[in-house]
């Protein structure tokens, strides 16, 4: 027979510590995260700090910018990505679309 734990005592750690969405980001401090930004920009870097606006400081940030170029003759859409690395970067929160924790970051 399976004995049931008293309610409230055997809650998994994840449920205890994640009460609101921002807690997911709090647990990602000092981890590499993925940030999707407006205007087809993406960032990967180590999260050092963030606030409620999702202003962030990322270490070793790699920015990927995706642009679509249309071929003049064939009208084919060519996706072009440009990458650059910035050792320490402050990101203003109003450009952030999503933040993904390290487990799902390639």
């Amino acid at each position, binding site marked *: 027979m399976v004995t049931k734990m008293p309610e409230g005592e055997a809650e998994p750690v994840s449920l205890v510590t994640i009460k609101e969405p*921002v*807690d997911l*980001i*709090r647990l990602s*401090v*000092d981890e590499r995260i993925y940030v999707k930004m407006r205007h087809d920009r993406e960032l990967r870097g180590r999260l*050092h*700090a*963030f*606030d*409620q606006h999702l*202003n962030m*400081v990322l*270490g070793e940030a790699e920015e990927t910018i995706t642009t679509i170029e249309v071929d003049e003759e064939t009208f084919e859409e060519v996706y072009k990505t440009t990458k650059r690395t*910035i*050792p*320490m*970067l*402050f*990101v*203003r929160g*109003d*450009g952030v679309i999503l933040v993904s924790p390290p487990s799902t970051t390639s």
Partner: protein
Amino acid sequence: MVPTYCKFVIFNKIVRLTSKMLFYSFFKTLVGHEIIVELKNDICVTGRLHSVDQFLNIKLIEVCVSDPEKYPYMNYISESFIRGSVVRYVQLPVNSVDSQLLQDAARKEITIR
């Protein structure tokens, strides 16, 4: 004599007030350092951080623009006030950032809230 519950309320207000200021405090520690501010219209402004305010408006001195051929009108500017909302990124000098302190402050700030 202030009742205990009042003290608690006052304390909470102070904590909440200061806790919204993480990046403001952070930028104040960077005053005097060389930073690169990247604006939402892709202009990159390099300069020495003179001051910052609670909206993260930035005042730069010794300004130079990375691409002067593209933005010739920026050549004549030596000092500039940049509205916080037009900033996309700020590239920071890696040696003047204490990442451990920053991480602790970030964890604390969001817990207090």
